């Protein structure tokens, strides 16, 4: 475990060496941003709307009492969506979508000697392959999480409109009642950390793949599993330390 941790840290250090040519790396960052950001928009939009709707319906179901104002449903949905559902569930889904793709892409490059070809040319292969992905992850995943929050809260609105358990006006009032800006900060920190975890762990698993197609598949699986575990661990640490 310590051996792997050491290799992971060394790989990250190599990844952030000075680029050979900034313009080439910048083009890679842009390409990764499009791939990770635009490419993940569909799945994030779908799960966010459903999560927001389900969160609203279940909260309303648990708070059926004349003593509790209906606006509370909006407040709880808002807090749980911003604090937990959007960043964490999006990150877990993105670990599957982006993480497996990164690990298998880099792993395939390793077993087909493309990484060797980069090294022979004098290119810092970890820098060229990994740093654009990490930069893209820590910028685009927060953007996706913001979109997810908006769509999640919209999903809650649609659920209210459809079910009539809570009126849409109560729901909207609840969204603004007692808003604490700290939850947005926590959400942002989580998104950035999760973006880093997904990209760096999956890139590490791919970079040290050896063998053939079977090992590339195993590296992708390991990348997703370790990313998910680390996302949940980081979620706990951030929540405990910032809230």
């Amino acid at each position, binding site marked *: 475990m310590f051996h792997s941790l050491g290799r992971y840290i060394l790989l990250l250090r190599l990844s952030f060496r000075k680029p050979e040519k900034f313009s080439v790396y910048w083009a890679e960052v842009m390409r990764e941003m499009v791939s990770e950001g635009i490419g993940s928009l569909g799945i994030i939009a779908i799960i966010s709307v459903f999560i927001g709707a389900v969160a609203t319906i279940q909260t309303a179901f648990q708070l059926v009492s004349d003593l509790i104002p209906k606006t509370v449903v909006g407040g709880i949905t808002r807090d749980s969506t911003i604090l937990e559902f959007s960043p964490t569930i999006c990150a877990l889904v993105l670990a599957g979508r982006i993480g497996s793709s990164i690990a298998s892409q880099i792993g395939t490059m390793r077993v*087909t000697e*493309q990484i060797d*070809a980069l090294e*022979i040319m*004098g*290119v810092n292969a970890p820098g060229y392959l990994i740093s654009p992905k990490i930069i893209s992850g820590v910028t685009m995943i927060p953007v996706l999480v913001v979109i997810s929050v908006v769509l999640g809260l919209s999903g809650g609105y649609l659920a209210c409109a459809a079910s009539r358990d809570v009126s849409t006006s109560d729901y909207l009032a609840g969204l603004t009642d007692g808003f604490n800006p700290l939850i947005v900060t926590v959400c942002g920190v989580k998104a950035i950390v999760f973006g880093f975890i997904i990209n760096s762990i999956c890139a590490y698993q791919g970079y040290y793949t050896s063998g053939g197609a079977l090992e590339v598949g195993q590296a992708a699986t390991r990348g997703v599993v370790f990313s998910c575990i680390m996302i949940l661990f980081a979620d706990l640490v951030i929540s405990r330390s910032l809230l």
Partner: protein
Amino acid sequence: MIETQEVYKTFGDNQVLKGITTEFKPGKKNLIIGGSGSGKTTLLKCIVGLHEPTSGEVIFDSENFTAMHFKERVKIRKHIGMLFQNSALFDSMSVEANVMFPLNLFTDMSKSEKLDRANFCLERVDLKGKGKLHPSELSGGMKKRVGIARAISMQPKYLFVDEPNSGLDPLTSILIDELIAELTEEYNTTTVVVTHDMNSVMGIGDHIIFLHNGQKWWEGTNKDIAHSDNKELNNFVFASPFMKAAREKL
């Protein structure tokens, strides 16, 4: 010129290279031959720095490559071109982008100059007009030629070729060999080829080293092979009845 001095390489308990000392001269087609597991590719990877020798030195034109740090090695690597066994083309890029890749990173050429150079290299390997294709659209022989075009795009001083004929038909193999020979003369490169292919050995082997069990077992030219009395070399080169018959006629 490239020299290896007492190069040893060990993986765990397995000693793959056992003190290889040799030199590869410019303008010559230097071939490394030997049976499977004899250490040919490991020696090539030690020379280019993909593997670190357990002990010994690799020297490029009086500069000790083995002792260099990453940044110092980059200066030498800019002069290295390498064709890999599976071509190792970047799947996500077009043929043209593959050839232009080292130019993008290491030169200050304008876009049109880089395009001109890429097209020149592609024309040189007889792939004019194929620049917009992707590697997945190419045959094995075409991929090898794109690999060669990429390797020569920076006008290398040292050209390394790993199993250039694996998976190719005999005619394409001969074309690839001829191309390697022409480029070696044209650029006066120090060319090192790892091969199993006896046509290559007899056709372009200016200087051949035969590895057996990780040791340099024999060294000479393609003309020397026919008259060698080295038992292991003869068992390797003249393994087939056809080659045995051919030797008897020499």
